[in-house]
């Protein structure tokens, strides 16, 4: 079952003195997140991530389109008790202590009075705030507030959790704890939708990611697939004091570090490169295809559409040339690339 179905959700604001000039904050967005999935919503600041989350939370109203959360209309109040939300840089009632705040939110979320206190204590323990539970939030650091934010988002045991920049403002230890928490939520079968611009977090946590830029969804893909996609290059590491000239002649980009050489070269030169190593009696340490990182995918998606199209065309030309050279061996890789591009186009068209 889809946990989130975003159906052409669109938002524009009227700006200017007379409020007549529309400014598009989110182009029509179509996206489906399955139940139990951890989905990362990536994009630079001002890309439209927070606007999307605010639309889904009913904090701003869409200009067009709608969304369904857990099979219900997004503005259905009944669905809100199944949702947890952590806003970006959250602020809370600073006259309350962490315990009082969670109790208040528990009341508003309909957590039964019996067992509410125990649940609050459990959440405080889970985010490591038991010792500061009675302190007013005005005395909390930014990191501690973020922890309170996480606790309030999962307090009522929601099925679907939205986190807007959950790692923002946290020290490395705090970030690690948030990662662990998201992993725990995944293992409990929750659906997690989180926005971030920290790619390593998305890489480590997400099943799928979507890249949004200038209010437009530029691409969606499974992290595992995005990262297994090769770039038609291999990386060879071997023991040597200098780079053999015959290897450079094969088009290798090599660098020497200590008594090791790290060379990257086109994968069609793999056999020739191994032959060079054999001939020169050099000891091979490793040989592996160069995998695309999430960062490369992200940066590619952030480029203007015309540049992306040119890159895709170039890539297709390279693939065709490679297919001609290598025959059937490349078919599987091309199929992967084709699938991935189809996914991307679906996302862009959405």
């Amino acid at each position, binding site marked *: 079952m889809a946990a989130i179905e975003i159906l052409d959700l669109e938002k524009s*604001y009227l700006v200017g003195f007379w409020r007549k000039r529309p400014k598009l904050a989110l182009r029509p967005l179509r996206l489906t997140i399955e139940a139990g999935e951890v989905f990362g919503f990536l994009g630079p600041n001002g890309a439209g991530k927070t606007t999307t989350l*605010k639309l889904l*939370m*009913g*904090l*701003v*109203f869409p200009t067009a389109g709608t969304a369904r959360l857990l099979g219900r209309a997004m503005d259905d*109040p*009944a669905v*809100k*008790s199944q*949702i947890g*939300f952590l*806003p970006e*840089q*959250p*602020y*809370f*009632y600073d*006259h*309350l202590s962490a315990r009082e705040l969670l109790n*208040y*939110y528990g*009341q*508003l*979320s*309909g957590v039964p009075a019996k067992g509410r206190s125990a649940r609050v204590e459990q959440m405080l323990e889970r985010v490591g705030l038991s010792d500061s539970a009675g302190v007013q939030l005005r005395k909390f650091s930014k990191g501690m507030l973020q922890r309170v*934010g996480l606790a*309030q988002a999962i307090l*009522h045991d929601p099925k679907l959790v*939205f986190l807007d920049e959950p790692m923002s403002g946290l020290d490395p230890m705090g970030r690690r704890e948030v990662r662990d928490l998201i992993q725990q939520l995944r293992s409990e079968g929750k659906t997690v939708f989180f926005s971030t611009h920290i790619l390593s977090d998305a890489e480590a946590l997400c099943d799928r990611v979507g890249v949004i830029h200038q209010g437009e969804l530029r691409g969606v893909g499974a992290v595992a697939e995005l990262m297994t996609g090769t770039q038609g290059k291999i990386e060879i590491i071997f023991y040597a004091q200098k780079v053999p000239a015959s290897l450079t002649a094969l088009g290798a980009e090599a660098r020497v570090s200590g008594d090791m050489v790290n060379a990257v070269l086109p994968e069609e030169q793999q056999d020739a490169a191994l032959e060079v190593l054999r001939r020169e009696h050099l000891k091979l340490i490793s040989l592996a295809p160069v995998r695309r990182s999430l960062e490369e995918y992200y940066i590619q998606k952030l480029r203007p559409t015309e540049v992306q199209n040119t890159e895709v065309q170039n890539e297709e030309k390279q693939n065709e040339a490679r297919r001609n050279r290598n025959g059937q061996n490349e078919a599987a890789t091309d199929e992967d690339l084709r699938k991935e591009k189809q996914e991307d186009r679906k996302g862009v068209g959405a």
Partner: protein
Amino acid sequence: MNPRIGYIAFNTFREAVRDRVLYNLIAFALVLSGAAIIVGEISIDIERLVVVNLGLTAVSLFGVVIAIFIGIGLVSKEIDKRTLYTVLSRPVRRWEFVVGKFFGLTGTLVVNTFLMAVGVFLALLYVNNKFERMDLWVLAALYFIVLQFLIVCALALFFSSFSTPLMSAVFTFALFVIGNLAEDMRALARATHGAAVWLATGIAYLVPNFSALNVISQVAHGDPIPARLILYNTVYALLYSAMAISGAVLIFQRRNLK
């Protein structure tokens, strides 16, 4: 009452108390005890008149200032500080939030007024050495002051649902001042001729009639308050507040939170 409205109201009350809003009571106590001591020294036979006049006017002004300055921030502060996000992402409807905030502030003002009323009666006891039957009408005047607070809170909420806090304060205070002249405006409307009569009558009846809710002078002179006026003022204040709150809800329901 819807439990969520109660939770929001209680949180609003708790916030006001912890933000030391009730500290105004210290200033009130100083004003009143100072006045009581001074009139005890200088006036002959008009101690009660001065204490009731001064005491009830102070109760009204302190309360109106609190109602305006907290009322205009009830919703706008929550939007600015984004505390609203984690409330409205829960099963809380927007109207419940507005109504809960309204009840929270009026609750704060009722407690504040009760404590100030205790001060007024203590001052009366100090200058008269006993309570008289006509002191009961002071309770009616205090009740009318609370009704004024209901309207002022509702207006502050209404203006703050579409305007900046500063402008909301200006609008609300202006309406409070004009509303205290409502009876004069109505008399003026009756004396108007031609096309202007509709406009003058419309404005006179649109502004809140605070002058009908101000019986401080009567009770200071020991005049009784008719039961009919109590009933009329109660219905009027409840209807007027309900209309202003409904307006605030209608605007807030459609508002995009930045």
